[in-house]
């Protein structure tokens, strides 16, 4: 069977999973004790106001009709109306998502780069001082609260240099004020991703790209370092394992270069479990994004969820959770496909 057919099947199989997820989320909001509308209003309420809100939100209908409305809405990409300001949740999420995606992508790159390289390095210096210190770094980075790390980096690389009169890196935001890149025209089509680094390049502005990159440095380092601990550990242990295997010795015995042995034999095989962890860490990354985004005024989904939870905005939370679920499903799909691609032993 071809890889394409596998991808298609695997994607189709994601559908029932999403139906289950969305149904569970729907039920949790409605079946768990506590009426979201009442919770929204607090203890003592004006019944008319409640009825009005219920009507606006369509929650005055019988539950099975609500479910049908909800599922039909989902199919149309409609996640309902936010409690707090009666705006469409899906629109809000789509406007916030690119920021989170950009932060997440660069953080993953930092985490993998730092984690895998340090992990591989630790494994090659197994049980040495270098190994021990890398492992210690891994543990510390894993244990340190993300926002605290963020504040430290903010102070060291943005606030302190500015107080000295040499501004080094911005502490907050995604790009200098008023300079959000708008993408560019290609063959008469306007392309804009919402990822500022990409949009800057689409628009052909190097200065915007560099500016966006400057703004990305601290938040992606914060989140990336916080996540690198897991990668250090998993890379190290897998590399130690793989490098001890016969085929590595055999490769050396054939006179292959150490670099080939280490990457093409060692890391390439150790990569598979790392990939699994990468998929699993994606959810953690989204969680970390909430804290990072607040510290760096990043304005993405993390901030959205934070605001929504703070305001008991149930439809917004529901929408965000479904969206996160969708993302995680998508990522696991990508990971599975990558896995199948990278590991010839996988039968698909």
């Amino acid at each position, binding site marked *: *069977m071809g890889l394409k057919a596998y991808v298609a*099947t695997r994607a*189709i199989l994601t559908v029932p999973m999403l139906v289950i997820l969305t149904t569970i989320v729907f039920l949790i909001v409605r079946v768990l004790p506590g009426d979201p509308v009442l919770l929204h209003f607090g203890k003592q309420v004006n019944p008319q106001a409640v009825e009005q809100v219920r009507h606006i939100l369509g929650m005055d209908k019988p539950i099975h009709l609500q479910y049908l409305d909800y599922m039909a809405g989902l199919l149309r990409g409609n996640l309902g109306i936010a409690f707090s300001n009666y705006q469409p949740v899906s629109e809000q999420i789509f406007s916030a998502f690119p920021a989170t995606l950009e932060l997440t992508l660069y953080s993953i790159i930092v985490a993998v780069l730092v984690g895998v390289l340090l992990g591989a390095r630790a494994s090659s210096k197994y049980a040495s001082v270098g190994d021990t210190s890398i492992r210690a770094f891994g543990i510390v980075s894993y244990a340190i609260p993300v926002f605290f790390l963020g504040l430290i980096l903010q102070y060291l690389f943005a606030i302190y240099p500015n107080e000295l009169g040499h501004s080094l890196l911005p502490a907050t935001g995604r790009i200098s004020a008023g300079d959000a890149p708008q993408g560019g025209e290609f063959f008469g089509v306007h392309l804009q991703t919402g990822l500022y680094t990409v949009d800057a390049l689409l628009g052909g502005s190097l200065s915007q790209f560099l500016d966006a990159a400057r703004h990305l440095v601290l938040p992606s380092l914060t989140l990336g370092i916080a996540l690198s601990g897991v990668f250090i550990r998993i890379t190290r242990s897998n590399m130690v394992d793989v490098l001890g295997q016969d085929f590595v010795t055999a490769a050396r015995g054939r006179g292959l270069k150490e670099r080939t042995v280490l990457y093409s034999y060692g890391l390439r095989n150790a990569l598979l479990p790392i990939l699994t962890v990468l998929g699993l860490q994606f959810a953690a990354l989204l969680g970390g994004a909430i804290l990072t985004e607040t510290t760096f005024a990043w304005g993405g989904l993390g901030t959205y969820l934070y605001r929504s939870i703070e305001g008991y905005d149930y439809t917004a939370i529901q929408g965000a959770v479904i969206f996160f679920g969708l993302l995680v499903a998508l990522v696991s799909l990508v990971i599975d496909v990558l896995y199948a691609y990278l590991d010839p032993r996988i039968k698909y």
Partner: protein
Amino acid sequence: MSPVCGEGKVTYLVEAKRLKKYFPVRRSLLEGVLGKRERFLRAVDDVTIGVEKGTVLALVGESGSGKTTFGKLTLRVHLPSSGSVTFNGKEVASFKDKDLESFRRSAQMVYQDPTAALNPRITIGEAIRQPLEFNRLGSVSDQKERALKIMERVGLLPAEEFYSRFPHELSGGQRQRVVIARALVLDPVYLVADEPVAMLDVSVRAQILKLILELKQELDLTMLIITHDLAIAKYFSDNVAIMYLGQIVERGSRQDTFVNPMHPYTKALISSVPVPDPERKRERLMVPGDIPSAINPPPACRFHTRCPFVFERCRVDEPALVERSPGHFVACHLYDKK
């Protein structure tokens, strides 16, 4: 020669009749979705064979021939897909409650890898005593005494001292003694030994095999030895069955099998064993290729794809296991030619 009882009738302790065990092959995601027909690995495919009371039957075959599955079927570790296994004439699959408990005590197994078979955090004395505890046999002190006794018998001396040791403190041979002691502590009548010495060094192999045979005599055990090592089959069995791709291709007394092998596969097996004599240059019966997959075994005679003597009939007609001389059964068309 096979021992005979009463009026020349053979008494089997364990008997398999037309025994089949098919394992469903895990379909891949895609196959499952596309509704592809489920496939089976035919581990044991229509085997009829018995282990005579008080004898040792060696089941010989290459890896993937289904011999271990057969051993487990006789212990009711697996339930058959079809056919039957009887123990003392009773259907093993039908055992319930008390009968089942007593069967479990009577039929024991010795595994190939003693290291994997022992929990590294439990002392070997406790490991040997545990089966008694699980079967609620006697008081704790009785159990301990019984464990010490069997430890002495298998040569774990001094037993008191060994009792409190952990598996990692023992050599491979000693660990296999522990596994044997644990199998024997419940006084079984039937013992399946699955490659009992394959993981051991040559210098201790003989000790362990000797011990097993002594215990067999002493405790009047009936044994099934599963092995790929023909030398072990030759020296330590009364009867031999040769298995290929889930089927028995030849069975008979040890003498029949080794002195007068008839099936080309048996011949190839025997001639393939390297002989520790540099001056003896034998003519080898070379068999090409690998053992085929048990998921899609070749039709008709399963050995026809590799057999040096293959002819037309072998490809179309499945040979039956025919008694070519008293007690010597062979499944091969070659002997119908004349």
